[in-house]
């Protein structure tokens, strides 16, 4: 009964949080207008298939497409692929392509473009998707509108990765036979299939992308033009939105302490849960004493006031984390694992655990010292480090906060493992196989943004591998449920906060946030001041 009530309450809460597209649906879309969106700096490339850069993808994914896009519930929906079939064993995915797609230069889009991009670009150069292609045996293009991907072993997240963000399709006729990373189209005049096409780039200032009149979805896009405005200073970005010079700021570029104020501004719409969720993780270096003892790690978890961190460091935008897997990845999250119950803030219990572990207080009350290393430029980490330092003082653990620059963080934490505790923001990338496994599986080569703790548990490695390659979601779920249980006990890392992403936009625009991807789907965005016909 209690569980039913809880489920009902949760359902109502979720319903309240769910997107409310009613206003957008009851109005008829209008044509024309320019939407100016904010980015932090010049994109390093305009080729979306070789980067994970936020600026690059934010711009390029207005001009390029993936085979699929993810809807608000993270289900793949047709983009350049009209439909697809996955074989029962998961070893073969056949994509049927949209028949009417043309590149911006007028050339027809065919399966040859997809085969070329997958084999020659994504499998070789994409920082993230490259790993997915390790499982691919071959890509076939039996006819111009069919692509078949054959796998050595099933790789469950593959379909979800075929988005513009993870696997944008490039024009073979412009990239074949060239040095992919140095192709001049990467920095000027890129040719895509997307709703907007190349206009001009005034470097350091803005990038202009006019409407693609030949777009494959008839009648779309509604807007005449989109402009990426380079606004490097985060506070000034919000001021530019308020001054009406900028219309949209994506979560990555938004100063979160401004959100509460912007909610009061009638000319601004604030949208929560916009993108693939991320987390803040506290990693423990399990190769250093006394952190090699899991009782010590568990004690530190209990001695950390995470609700306070949520309020003071991330302004309540998220929730106190419950497991290694973000609760928003509902199918994979194990509800039997709940860090808020396993490790509630309880300094007395934490002290008792440290006593049990044999860590006696010295004459000055200190049991041991740790260095807490983090990237000084990452919003929220300074506050979290300060709060942890205070919390742990009560446990007799002396924390030296070491805020360092991003590059130095990589060197200290991942390359040299010269730290005891570190705070890191990780994205889940929408699937545990992509974004979460890397933080826990055995990793000893110092690669950045993997598992820096030295923690190595063959059972955990095995379960994550099983979950990544099981073709059926039920089998994946079983493996993830089990692995969360093990991690919750071993606790090589404590997920502090499950973040939620927040975008803001001018209230004059409708149709934003059609997709769960951070770069969204802007062919359906329209301006309320536009014309009633094209």
């Amino acid at each position: 009964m209690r569980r039913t009530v809880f489920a009902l309450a949760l359902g109502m809460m979720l319903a309240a949080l769910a997107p409310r597209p009613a206003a957008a649906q009851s109005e008829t879309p209008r044509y024309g207008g320019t939407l100016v969106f904010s980015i932090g700096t010049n994109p390093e490339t305009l080729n979306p298939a070789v980067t994970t850069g936020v600026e690059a993808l934010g711009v390029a994914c207005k001009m390029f497409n993936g085979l699929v896009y993810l809807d608000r519930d993270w289900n793949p929906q047709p983009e350049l692929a009209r439909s697809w079939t996955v074989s029962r064993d998961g070893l073969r995915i056949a994509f049927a392509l949209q028949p009417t797609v043309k590149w911006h230069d007028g050339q027809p889009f065919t399966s040859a473009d997809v085969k070329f991009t997958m084999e020659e670009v994504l499998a070789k150069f994409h920082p993230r998707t490259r790993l997915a292609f390790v499982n691919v045996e071959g890509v076939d293009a039996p006819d111009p509108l069919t692509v078949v991907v054959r796998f050595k072993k099933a790789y469950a997240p593959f379909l979800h990765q075929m988005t513009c963000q993870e696997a944008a399709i490039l024009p073979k006729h412009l990239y074949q036979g060239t040095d992919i990373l140095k192709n001049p189209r990467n920095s000027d005049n890129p040719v895509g299939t997307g709703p907007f096409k190349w206009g001009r780039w005034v470097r350091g200032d803005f990038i202009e992308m006019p409407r693609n009149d030949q777009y494959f979805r008839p009648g779309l896009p509604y807007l005449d033009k989109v402009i990426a405005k380079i606004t490097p200073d985060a506070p000034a970005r919000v001021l530019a939105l308020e001054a009406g010079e900028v219309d949209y700021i994506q979560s990555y570029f938004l100063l979160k302490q401004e959100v509460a104020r912007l909610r009061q501004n009638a000319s601004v719409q604030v949208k929560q849960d916009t993108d693939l969720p991320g987390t803040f993780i506290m990693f423990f270096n399990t190769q250093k004493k006394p952190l090699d003892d899991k009782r010590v790690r568990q004690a530190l978890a209990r001695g950390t006031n995470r609700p306070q961190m949520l309020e003071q460091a991330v302004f309540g935008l998220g929730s106190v984390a419950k497991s290694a897997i973000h609760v928003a990845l509902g199918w994979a999250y194990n509800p039997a694992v709940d860090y808020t119950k396993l490790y509630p803030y309880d300094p007395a219990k934490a002290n008792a655990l440290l006593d049990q572990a044999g860590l006696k207080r010295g004459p000055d009350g200190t049991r041991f010292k740790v260095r807490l290393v983090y990237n000084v430029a990452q919003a929220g980490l300074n506050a979290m480090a300060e709060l942890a330092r205070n919390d742990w003082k009560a446990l007799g653990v002396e924390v030296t906060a070491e805020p360092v620059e991003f590059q130095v963080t990589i060197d200290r934490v991942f390359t040299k493992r010269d730290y005891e505790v570190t705070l890191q923001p990780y994205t889940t990338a929408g699937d545990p196989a992509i974004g979460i496994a890397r933080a826990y599986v055995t990793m000893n080569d110092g690669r950045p943004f993997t598992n820096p703790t030295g923690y190595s548990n063959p059972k955990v490695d095995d379960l994550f591998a099983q979950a990544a390659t099981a073709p059926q979601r039920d089998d994946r779920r079983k493996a993830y449920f089990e692995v969360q249980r093990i991690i919750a006990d071993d606790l090589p890392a404590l997920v502090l906060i499950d973040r939620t992403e927040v975008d803001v936009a001018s209230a004059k625009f409708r149709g934003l946030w059609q997709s769960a991807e951070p770069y969204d789907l802007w062919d359906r965005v329209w301006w309320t001041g536009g014309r009633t016909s094209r």
Partner: protein
Amino acid sequence: MARYILVRLLQIPPVLFGLVTVIWLVVRLAPGDPVLALVGDFPAPDEYVRKVRAEFGLDRSLPEQYLRYVAAVARGDLGFSFVFRRPVLALVLERAGATALLTATALAFASLVGVALGILAARRPFSILDGLISGGSVVGFSVPVFWLGQLLILVFAVTLGWLPAQGMVSLRVSSEGWARLWDIALHLILPAAALALRFLAMTARLARASMLEVLGRDYVRTAQAKGASAVRVLFAHAFPNAALPVLTLIGYNVGFLLAGSALVETVFGWPGMGRLLYDSVFARDFPVLLGIMIVVSLTVVLANLVTDLLYAYFDPRIRYRT
């Protein structure tokens, strides 16, 4: 005079060589790996990292990298950006114009208004006007430029709506000819004001002190005694001598203005070199970082040269000593 100029010009190459070496060492010995910055926040395959490293010559030994770099710079080749994958010279040059416009405007404004305020203050030392100018310049000197920038945007762009908040041109309407110049001028006001304030304050204080010193000299008293008007005494007799330290300060300010422009460009989204410099530091984009440093150093060296020449022109004693 010609010999003086020649000697000064000949000093430039060794100074630049020293600068290139020092900057190269500082940049390369800082922790951090451009390749790791480049491959993003996900575990990149080793083979990919090796490929990128080799592509940019980062797999060679440090002395070899240094020698290759110096040889390339001597040929006028500033290298290839790791991040943008474009030649550095092109990247820097397309941004240099905006920085030059911003810093030149700020320098002119700070110098003219600063000197004027300094003279005004010195005319009646310890008067109310002097107190206001001196006090104001202490405040102006102390205000952090990024804070001032945000304040200016908040007041003049968001609240009053008089001036644009970001960038160099309006995005929603495109303009040509005079309208475009006017548009750029409007966009220039706030960033130039934010950049200038500190230097205006410095110039005003120095101009005041320098004028006060000169105004107490015998020859000024003589000029006054022979019945010269107050304006003539001030501008024909006192100012030319008081101007020398101020001139030095203005030349000296060029380097600081270029440094300050990095912050101002960031706050105002001004498309200059400053932001490029900032980004290349964080991305460890060594070629761009070095390229900008070299261009900025060259500008500062040349600005100092011009200052010295002007100084020599105004003060014959300097010429004779070289």
